[in-house]
């Protein structure tokens, strides 16, 4: 079915829709990874976004339940160049097409995604509306305006666990860790389990006191939708825990942690969305290629004012903050995603957090 995407600045691109029909609005988010579409769609960090994949051939290896990062698709749309009509991989249990249909996701294919990506690069990230009705330009503009002016609603209540949830019963021998679920992925959970943590998930709006009541040895702030309006409240909620409990912030959780520490989160002109971002960890010569998915970043100057806090990792290309550490505040934060899919090794940041917890005893 013919369909189109119309951008905030009036530009539009045509294509073919499959999956759900109708209209979808969201902020366009590019991703330059070649593989991982299913993981991206089901990662709550992408909630509400229209995902644009720059790699032109999508759906080649189908989908499989085990690749889901959560129970459902969170993006409001997907824009791709070419959709493979068959899938070919021994692990696949179904096609991308069936998957999005079942989950009611609207996909716009046959789009010149290269031109769209270059457009977003030069104009910055913006809102867009996918429409299979190919309605009046003015009408679509009006809908975009309405969406922009509408007060934002937090998706955290929907994304986060509803109640305190212990992930594993026999957690006695392990390090007891509270995890604030801002949109945790299964990959992250696997990493935490593999690191030997006994995990209890907490709803996003839990108070500091409630967390402390369970006597965890540390708190992890998970990744999630960084631009969600609810994140400010979360930062306020955890403020009292600083210095009392070892804290690890991951991606959006890192931003929340920095806000709680007094740092400022700012918008980037074009975010980092891909699997190939270099991070340097001075003074070490050893750097790291990281997976990143963020359009906001923590302002380095604002962090400089926080006593005892050090920025220990930078993006090599644009010097944005990738990693923070504070011994006396017992804080560790990473902007990148240390839990990329398929990792059969454990990222060192979890071991570092374990050490921090050990020292705090």
């Amino acid at each position, binding site marked *: 079915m013919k369909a189109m995407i119309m951008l905030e600045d009036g530009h539009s691109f045509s294509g073919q829709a499959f999956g759900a029909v109708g209209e979808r609005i969201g902020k366009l988010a590019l991703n330059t990874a070649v593989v991982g579409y299913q993981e991206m769609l089901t990662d709550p960090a992408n909630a509400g976004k229209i995902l644009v994949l720059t790699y032109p051939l999508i759906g080649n290896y189908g989908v499989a339940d085990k690749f889901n990062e959560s129970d459902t698709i969170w993006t409001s749309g997907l824009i791709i*160049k070419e959709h493979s009509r068959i899938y070919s991989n021994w*692990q696949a249990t179904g096609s991308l097409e069936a998957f999005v249909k079942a989950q009611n996701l609207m996909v716009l294919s046959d789009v010149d995604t290269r031109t769209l990506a270059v457009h977003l690069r030069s104009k910055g990230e913006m809102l867009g509306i996918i429409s299979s009705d190919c309605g009046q330009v003015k009408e679509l503009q009006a809908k975009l305006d309405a969406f922009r002016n509408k007060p934002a609603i937090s998706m955290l209540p929907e994304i986060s666990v509803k109640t305190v949830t212990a992930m594993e019963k026999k957690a006695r021998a392990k390090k007891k860790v509270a995890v604030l679920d801002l949109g945790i992925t299964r990959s992250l959970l696997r990493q935490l389990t593999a690191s030997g943590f006994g995990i209890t998930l907490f709803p996003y709006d839990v108070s500091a006191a409630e967390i402390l009541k369970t006597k965890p040895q540390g708190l992890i702030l998970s990744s999630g939708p960084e631009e969600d309006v609810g994140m400010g409240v979360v930062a306020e909620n955890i403020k009292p825990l600083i210095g009392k409990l070892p804290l690890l912030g991951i991606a959006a959780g890192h931003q929340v942690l920095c806000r709680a520490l007094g740092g400022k989160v700012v918008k980037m002109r074009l975010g980092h969305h891909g699997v190939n971002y270099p991070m340097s960890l001075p003074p070490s010569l050893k750097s790291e290629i990281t997976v990143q998915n963020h359009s906001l970043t923590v302002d380095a100057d604002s962090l400089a004012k926080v006593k005892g806090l050090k920025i220990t990792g930078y993006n090599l290309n644009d010097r944005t903050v990738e990693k923070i550490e504070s011994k006396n505040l017992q804080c560790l934060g990473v902007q990148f995603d240390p839990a990329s899919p398929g990792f059969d090794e454990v990222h060192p940041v979890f071991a570092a957090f374990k050490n921090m917890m050990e020292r705090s005893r």
Partner: protein
Amino acid sequence: MPRRRDLKKILMIGSGPIVIGQACEFDYSGSQACKALREEGYYTILVNSNPATIMTDPNMANVTYIEPLSIDIVTQIIAKERPDAILPTLGGQTGLNLAFFLMKQGVLKKYGVESIGASVTAISCAEDRLLFKKAMQEIGVDVPKSGIANSVEAGMKIGLGIGFPLILRPAYCLGGAGGSIVYNKEELEKFLYKGLETSPVHQVLVEQSVLGWKEIEFEVIRDCADNVIIVTSMENVDPMGVHTGDSMVVAPAQTLTAEEYRNFVNLCHRIIRRVGVTGGGVNIQFGQNPVDGHIVIIEVNPRLSRSSALASKATGFPIARVSTKLAVGYTLPEVINQVTGKTTAFFEPTVDYCVFKICRFTFEKFALADRTLNTSMKAVGEAMSIGRNFKEALQKGIRSTEISRYGFGADGKDKITDEMLKNPTAELIKLIKDKISVPNDERIFYLRYALKIGLTINDIYELSRVDRWFLDNMQQLVETEDRIKTYRLEDAHGEIRLPAELLSQAKKDGFSDRQIAYLLNVSEDKVREHRKKQTVKAVYKPVDTCAGEFNAQRPYFYSTFETQEEGRPSKNKKVIILGGGPNRIGQGIEFDYCCCHAAYALKEEGVESVMINCNPETVSTDYDTSDRLYFEPLTIEDILNIIELEKPMGVIVQFGGQTPLNLAVALRKAGVNILGTSADSIDVAEDRKRFQQMLHKLNLLQPENGTAFEYEEAKKVAQRIGYPVLVRPSYVLGGRAMEIVYDESSLEKFVAEAAKVSGEHPVLIDKFLEDAIEVDVDLIGDGTTFCIGGILEHIEEAGIHSGDSAMVLPTFTLSQELLAKIRDAAYKMAKELNILGLMNIQFAIKDDRVYVLEVNPRASRTVPFVSKVIGVQLAKLATKIMLGKKLKDLGFTEEIIPEHVAVKESVFPFNRFPGVDVILGPEMKSTGEVMGLDKDFARAFIKSQLAAGQNLPKKGNVFISVRDRDKRAIVFIAKKLHDLGFHLLATAGTAAALEKNDIPVKVLPKVAEGRPNVIDLMKDGKIQMVINTPSGRIPRQDEIKIRSHVILYTIPYTTTISGAQATVSGIEALVKKDLEVQSLQEYHKKAKYKSSKAKA
């Protein structure tokens, strides 16, 4: 970490001549490395025996040795230059092996030379099969079940223990040479013999076959601080069982899940760490079971490779440059990626397109060669194409190979027509099934036939093991083809009714105008016009390493049919250079060398250079060779599209070999300005009739000749001029389908063959001048002044293709009188054709008469060779002439006759084609060349033989068998061998001739008549050299047997008297041990000093 200051001088080893498995990719990586080292201020010393390379240009390294890549010679160079370090990772397997043996023999230690880029431990770990297997098991990486055999017995035991099928891989061999798949005990034994012979360390890996598994490759780089990046993944379209150098390959991998990809990446990290590369790149090959995902490692190459060149070109990440910087101590984050200009080398490239690599084969040159593809590489070249989807890349790739195909079939050139496919006979179905289940060079087209006769994707998958995803994409192309065909016109002049949407989709899926024209039954021009009217136009997208995330500074471009033009050409004065496309026999690195020089010359003249080429191995497709690069097929459609966008002042067609020259007429018809010698002059040279008229006018001789379209005509011509005659097609390079015909009975067959290749042009028939001396002349002209670059005398007599013949510069048997005649003829023709640029003439000299055989108004294969010998860069000068400069301004008006002697020798791929007779003829068969350079002929010749891999003996037994008319000449040769202490063995006839002259000789029985015969002695290693001239036009079975064993046991051999003479004088120099090394710069300095003294 800054670069290492403890190193001052660095020695680099090149890869030697172009052979199957080792082509121009090492010139590309070597040149990049030279530049990278010199940027850092290192004093660089380069040794390579291949004169046709850019890397051996005297301005690339501080000191350049064009010398044989032998341990003795390189040791001499080390002793003379005293480098601090050796960089062995840029010269392919040759360079790596040489470094390894230098280490083993203690040379590196003796002279205090460190191996950088890959330590000796790392090389051993990756190359020694046993160490490698152990290392992989240590880090939990599975290897196929295998064992190492040092003898046939051991190999049999291992093989029978694992079970069939098995793969045999000789250790330390490039391009899988000697490798094979065996299915039974008999084959196992046979190929164990062969493999042990092929391996320089007599070691063969006997391995469980993972036939039909997915073949996945990764290019990985690591620095001294343990930073690791993945440059790209690649997936072979042909599954395991076909050498990756023969496979169609896509980048990135298309059928891996994110989890699998991540697992592969983790394995790569572990592997590169365990192997211990601490400043360079590796290529890692995996096999993966498509049914359960089980991964095994196949091999690791701790050096730059064909795949790394492909990965570099596919992603815009210059692996050779980066690896070199890492080898001297930098870390990845310290090296800037010049393509983006914004990121460092510590950034994993990501792409927003699909890259496809397809190979070029030359089975047509080796009539008896088996076309089956297996683990021993057979391709002579490759093309890379880029598209926004696989279908587009596939079709562009096929037309890039220049096998007169314009896409995935449907171009009017299909062997099996649609009619036949509609109601296929049982026989045809069987043929198709066979052709897709046993890999061969035509499999891609048979996959289409299989789809067209209605085999399902699953059927085809079961037979071919080509992944279903690729097959479905092919199926889509067939469907589109069928849809287009419904708009076929009965009347070719009717109006095209193809809907715009279908046209647009077809173009997006890579259909060429030519295919659409065929399907619609109209002309290609008409489709082009129609397409423009419908505004279905190609746009250009950059290769930027980052999928559009950054605005790249130095991207290169590919065409596609999307919405927005990103090509954005400048308004500068510019010239387009047409490259030579994929390497093949007859058109290879020599032409790429010329194209690069054209780009350099344009830069020097302040004109923007725009390169079009599709060969990923070359220097011409490096990101910084030209100002702008288009990675595109060299067809008229693709070229015109670029010309319309770039609007150049002109196009250079002289340098890319026959490919661009063949397009000259069509380009001129389209109104394109051809720079240099006019298209009309090109036509005079190529058109037999007009050429004859010109020779007549200039009063020059030509062997008697005629043209014919079919046999009856040919018969009359041959009767008129008398046998033997030379039969050949028009407009071809490398003597394709060229034959010497001695009588009427064989004429018919060869005329038919030539007519097939010739197409709409007639077959040429020349009187063949037996025993003539051939001479090649390279000449440069500016329209008023003409100057000879070099006169090269062939060492073999006439009848052997000039590309295969050994040549010497300066000439060594021709009188001054004859030379004057040659010069006079050359200048006359150059003037008549008004040569603007380069020209090559072939003469034959018989009975003191000079005959003109051929004139090529373009750069010839010998241009780089001549340029290196005389120290004048002819291709560069020619480019400047095309821009309006005069030879006088350029300071080259007098022929330089060097004091030193240079011999060009050819190398042949016979070891890849078992059973093919090694005899040379008018059809070119060599893949590459080497140069021997020294103060006299004998030394230069012997160096050329050493460089070509002939392991010439200093003592031992020489077997001689010559035809009757050579029996007089052989006496002198045999005498010299005897004097040098060799023992002579000969067949009865030859022995009689020798005995008559009191030369002691042992008579051997004919092969069929008794034992031990020469074959037995060869097997036992008792023959050190063979001199065998063919007895006549139909070689005796004995001779073929002898010559094929020579290849099998790598015994030096010569098949001509003149070759034997030269070899023996060379051996004399070798025995007397006075081969010395001297750099190109030293030779040139002496030459310049001399010529300036002469002028003063």
